[in-house]
């Protein structure tokens, strides 16, 4: 059975995770809006570094969405952080991200102005947009779950 302190620790970490998820999503969105590595060409090394950073960040953020994070905490605390409510919130956020990805993809397909985009640029927009929205949705659902607790 978890101790009262485990519950308090999990509560604190879960609140922190919710706000960090929102902050990470906003930072990712702002950074990509500024750097736009899929749309701006530059010196090969610098450009490759930007693209690699984008891909790595996206993978890390998606891994947090997939696992809930907390890998560095005791298993008891981790299971409390990722209990039924968090699992449901993550699933909901991933579903929202999926539909956003579909909407962006359909938009890219049908809007004539974006017809000249390369497959890489389209993939960049889909991954970035859906990841940001999924993270923001997860953050909102978690903050709402903590409200009045």
């Amino acid at each position, binding site marked *: 059975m978890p101790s009262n302190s485990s*519950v308090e620790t999990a509560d604190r970490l*879960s609140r922190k995770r919710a706000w960090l998820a929102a902050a990470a999503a906003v930072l990712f969105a702002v950074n990509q809006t500024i750097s736009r590595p899929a749309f701006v060409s530059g010196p090969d090394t610098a450009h490759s570094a930007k693209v690699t950073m984008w891909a790595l960040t996206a993978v890390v953020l998606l891994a947090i969405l997939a696992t809930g994070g907390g890998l560095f905490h005791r298993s008891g605390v981790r299971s409390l952080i990722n*209990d*039924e*409510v968090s699992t449901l919130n993550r699933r909901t956020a991933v579903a929202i991200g999926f539909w956003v990805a579909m909407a962006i993809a359909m938009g890219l397909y049908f809007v004539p102005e974006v017809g000249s985009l390369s497959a890489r640029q389209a993939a960049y927009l889909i991954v970035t947009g859906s990841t940001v929205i999924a993270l923001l949705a997860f953050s909102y659902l978690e903050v709402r779950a903590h409200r*009045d607790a």
Partner: protein
Amino acid sequence: MHEHLRNRLREERARLGLTQADLATLAQVSRKTINTVENGVFIPSTVLALRLARVLGTSVESLFQIPE
């Protein structure tokens, strides 16, 4: 409160003088879970409903009801 499920979790918890953190510890869940169940934001799984009922010394049927 969820329109398809009412619960008496808050009342039963108060009857025993437990805080949300106390009940969370006894039921081996997070305080967030207790909070969302009490507020009707989250419908617990069968396993969690049974665990909550056991911890509170009551039955699932008296803890959760479908409105007529």
